[in-house]
């Protein structure tokens, strides 16, 4: 039922209660983000300085972009634990092409196209060979990770052409990853809410049999969802790989967990059928902000992960409490 509530275009009245009902988790995350900004900014002015805000928003934008696709996959009732390895592979492919002198748009496009191809294949194994998503993507994780290290031997890619470093471009004074994350989130949210295909993703995740009975082509839709997820992974890889002057040709550690966590904390139910990509983007930014604020609040770097883990747990428990009250 929550899927219907979240997706129904019925909040024209702008009633606060109805808004909270439809976007409860998103508002909780937004509130937490604002509270964190105010508290950290009061304690340490430099937290709200331009440099730090840039690093919070821009530095975590690739997680947010990847989490858009992950949210769609989870809403459709599946999961992808290979996305971190895939992003490592795609960033390496893109950087290698750029260094070898291919036109820069080819290097960028290759990341997106290979991302789509790999995830469409993954989706096909899930939809047509009927292997559970966690099994397929565990296998893909090994294949991509092992393949990447075998191919590169961990050598760093240096001497990237300046024109390739997309993540360092600015538009209207704001770094490009922020634009990508914001624009893609809005487009994806509108697409999922107002198009038939977008709505059918909720239907498949909510109840696959009912979706099939309602005439939704569930199998092609699952492949499509994974292909779209690959598209976002491709963009995330370019943003990730162009942050610095080098690409490390390794799999970023725990990236898949960060992406899945952003989706889930953002309100996407792991059981499928509910959630929005707005929540996952806000959650990705929130994690970046928490990490940064702990540094500004002088919490020992060694305790960072523990505090972050506690906060994730608190958010999950609060969400479960809110849901059980709502139902």
């Amino acid at each position, binding site marked *: 039922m929550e899927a219907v509530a979240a997706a129904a275009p019925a909040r024209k009245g702008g009633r606060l209660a109805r808004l909270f009902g439809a976007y409860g988790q998103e508002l909780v995350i937004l509130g937490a983000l604002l509270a964190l900004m105010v508290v950290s900014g009061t304690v340490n002015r430099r937290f709200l300085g331009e440099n730090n805000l840039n690093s919070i928003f821009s530095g975590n934008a690739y997680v947010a972009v990847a989490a858009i696709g992950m949210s769609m996959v989870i809403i459709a009732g599946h999961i992808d634990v290979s996305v971190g390895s895939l992003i490592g592979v795609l960033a390496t492919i893109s950087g290698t092409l750029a260094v070898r002198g291919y036109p820069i748009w080819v290097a960028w496009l290759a990341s997106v196209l290979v991302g789509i191809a790999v995830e469409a294949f993954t989706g096909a194994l899930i939809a047509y060979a009927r292997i559970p998503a966690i099994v397929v993507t565990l296998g893909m994780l090994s294949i991509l990770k092992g393949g990447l290290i075998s191919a590169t031997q961990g050598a760093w890619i240096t001497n990237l052409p300046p024109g390739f470093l997309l993540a360092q471009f600015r538009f209207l004074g704001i770094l490009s990853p922020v634009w990508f994350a914001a624009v893609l989130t809005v487009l994806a949210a509108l697409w999922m809410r107002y198009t038939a295909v977008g709505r059918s993703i909720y239907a498949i995740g909510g109840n696959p049999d009912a979706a099939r009975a309602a005439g939704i082509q569930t199998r092609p839709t699952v492949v499509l969802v994974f292909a779209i997820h690959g598209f976002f992974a491709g963009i995330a890889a370019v943003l990730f790989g162009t942050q610095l002057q080098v690409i490390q040709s390794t799999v970023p550690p725990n990236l898949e967990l960060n992406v899945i966590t952003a989706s889930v904390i953002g309100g996407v139910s792991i059981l499928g059928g509910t959630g929005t990509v707005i929540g996952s983007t806000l959650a990705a930014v929130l994690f970046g902000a928490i990490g940064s604020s702990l540094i500004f609040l002088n919490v020992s770097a060694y305790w960072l992960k523990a505090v972050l883990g506690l906060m994730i*747990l608190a958010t999950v428990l609060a969400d479960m409490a809110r849901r059980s009250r709502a139902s």
Partner: protein
Amino acid sequence: MPTSLRRLLRHETILAALVVVALVVLATQSERFFTAANILNQGRLMAEAGLVALTMTFVIITGGIDLSVGSILGLAAILVGVLWKNLGLALPVAMVLAVGAGGLAGLVNGLIVTRFKVPPLIATLATLALYRGLAEGISQSRSVRGYPEWFYALGQGDAAGMPVQVWILLVATVAAAGILGLTTFGRATYAVGANETAARFSGVAVDRTRLLIYTASGLMSGLAAVIFVSRVTTTRSDMGSGLELDVITAVVLGGTSIFGGKGTVVGTVLGLVLIQALRSGLSLAGVKGDGTIVVIGLVLIGAILVSNVFGRDGDG
């Protein structure tokens, strides 16, 4: 398909055949593969993941998952070092407390899953970050070395011609297989995973079963941590990271359904052996460690694909 043929083609049989084929092929690639020394050494390397995989089999049969096992291993490992070296406790006490801390971490997972109804994937995703964070915070990312000589017997010593931890793994495997296959608790485990509501109405203590299983998973990760520390002679806070994926791969490869309600300890052991044989055999045949990861991934997908094609029994 006649029942006998279907039974013949069940997942464990296919997997056992695959293990045999892999062993034969790998043995032709290197003379050192089928030596007693290599096989015993592989058993030593397999023990930690093997122990955790046994309890993970129970967890997955209940329809759950425990992603935090690697972090619990890391936390228990640094506790051995910190309790002994920094707090000055006797080493045996530190070892027991570390295993106990693993059990406590598992109990917390179980409470979050049963009391707060948080899906296990999310609950253990959160505690994965939390426990690893505690390990980093408590150890301040410093390693502890210089344990007394007797301590290394656990991870490096032999007993009656076999590595000590292989004995531990054997005993634990027999116990796990017995509990899962022969006891009421084992039946309850399957019942919870197959249909929770039906299990509840049949009088199965669903929450207590889950709680015990997650606690056992934590305890086993703690035990694996002590063996790990003894084997590598040092503690570091990043120990066991990525263990969850290795363990889940072995369990799923062994035919335990990720949806719950189906699976055996025998299957898990076959999955473990296949993975370890591939690791050892391919590296002896000259394939680099990263290449073997690729093969393990392919085998995982391939094995489930084949067993889906043969063993269509309605789920999937």
